[in-house]
């Protein structure tokens, strides 16, 4: 009996692994395909599509970075994403502080209305928004897209931060107030330090959203020297889809930043999502 159940256990473990590996294969293969073909020449690729490259040919990667301006696109994405993330988290946390710890007329209504705007996607507003931005001379500027990204990510930020700030004990705040601290000081010295994990997770979530965004960037940054990495790779595909290794190099370079951030931030990220999901 004991022997039999051990074999059963081993078999079921094996089966589980088999299924999990099968599910992983398509993902891992995509990354593999991307990487190996970035380092081949077109001729080599035609003859050998799925095997390893015979030599590490970095010419395509270099070309993409320099001639094809991916260095510039990367810089643009970095600036736009960085500022958007900062603004979203900063303004969102200020608002969340007020929603969670202060009493004022209309608080719950405004909060609800803000969260409800999550239903509106940028696409629905795209045309009038474009005209409005144009009237304010914000088209083809970083400022325009940064404002748009921030606005669309704020509801989620405010929601998560308010939920989290509410759990900070009021006694801490009262003690500080009794010592004569102003509300901003409390925000800076108590609320923020206590919320570091959530702030980190939120930053990564917003970063992900903004970095990977295409439509808004496409419409509001029409000039090539303002392109983000996403626009760059999308238009790159349109022009150079014949030279596969070149395109793969572009994709490879575009993937690396996000994957790197993901590797490092994984622990925070997954823990953060777990916490949110479990508490419902």
């Amino acid at each position: 009996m004991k022997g039999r159940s051990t074999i059963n256990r081993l078999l079921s473990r094996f089966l589980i692994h088999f299924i999990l590996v099968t599910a992983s294969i398509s993902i891992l293969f995509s990354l593999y395909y991307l990487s190996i073909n970035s380092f081949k020449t077109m001729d080599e690729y035609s003859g050998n599509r799925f095997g390893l490259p015979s030599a590490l040919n970095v010419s395509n990667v270099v070309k993409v970075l320099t001639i094809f301006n991916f260095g510039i696109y990367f810089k643009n994405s970095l600036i736009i994403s960085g500022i958007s993330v900062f603004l979203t988290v900063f303004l969102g946390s200020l608002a969340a502080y007020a929603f969670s710890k202060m009493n004022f007329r209309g608080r719950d209504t405004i909060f609800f209305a803000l969260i409800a705007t999550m239903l509106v996607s940028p696409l629905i507003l795209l045309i009038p928004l474009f005209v409005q931005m144009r009237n304010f001379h914000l088209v083809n500027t970083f400022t325009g897209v940064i404002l748009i990204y921030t606005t669309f990510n704020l509801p989620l930020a405010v929601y998560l931060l308010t939920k989290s700030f509410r759990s900070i004990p009021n006694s801490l705040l009262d003690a500080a107030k009794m010592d004569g601290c102003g509300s901003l000081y409390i925000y800076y010295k108590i609320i923020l330090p206590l919320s570091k994990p959530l702030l980190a997770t939120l930053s990564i979530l917003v970063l992900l959203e903004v970095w990977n965004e295409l439509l808004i960037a496409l419409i509001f940054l029409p000039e090539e020297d303002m392109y983000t990495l996403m626009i760059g790779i999308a238009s790159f595909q349109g022009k150079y889809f014949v030279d596969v290794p070149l395109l793969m190099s572009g994709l490879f370079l575009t993937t690396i930043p996000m994957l790197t951030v993901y590797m490092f931030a994984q622990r925070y990220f997954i823990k953060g999502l777990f916490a949110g999901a479990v508490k419902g």
Partner: protein
Amino acid sequence: MAKKTIFRNISPYLYILPVVLLTIFIKFYPLVDTFYHSFTNWYGTPVYKFVGLENYVEYFSSQTFWQVLSHNIFIIVLGIPLNVILGLILATLLYEKVFAWRYYQSIFFIPTILSIVICGIIWSYFLQLDGIINVILRLIGLGKLTPDWLASSRYSLWAVLMVIVWRDFGFATLLFLAGLLGADPSVFDAARIDGASWFQTLRYITVPRLKGIIEFFVVITTWAYFNCLFNYVYVMTGGGPGYATVVMEYYIYKEGFGFGYMGAACALSVVLFAITLLFASVEIHFMEVEI
């Protein structure tokens, strides 16, 4: 003394002011504007005239509109159950905490963090006539089913669906696994002692436990499959052969920025917004009724 009181009463509003201002400026005003222009024949110029419900009538009586809408419904009706099933299966398997389960979870989640643009481009290569998918299909003897997937008017939407699910199942898995990990394990132990089969455990314990999370996933994914498919279509098919893979968002983009029918595109946007609201309300209603 009076100055301090006023400051204390005003300052909450100052904290929320930037957020409120931005939202009004970038969301509310354009929303009203969209709604207004949907009743005009605006072509993007300052000159246009009011045409009432003409845009709406034209779309509702056009075959293309319903065809496009059916594409979104197709993705939702097939994609969401697929994601939920895959997510449940994988989450329960990972919950067994076999060796390296955390690594598997990390791998599953990778497509979700990759931008849709990248996923789309990679898969448009895999789905070529001589791409890896067809190579595998031929190898296992399904040589007859190897079209140029994204260029086939019959199969392109299926291919797009597959890529969407490929990207989202990791997210579902993560959500469900989180739910399982947060729940009390003693029920599962009890089930195991009582000799429940894997499927029985799944059906009578796991799914009821995860009901809230599954419903949450269904609601947000429905929203996403009405409002976040643009990138897939733009990068993989440009609408597909003809209008085979045009979804509502892409239709709005095509009508507004492609043909310049801005007023009409606004009407489409309003319709999309209304449909999204409708589906969300219906789904949330069902969720409440269950409780």
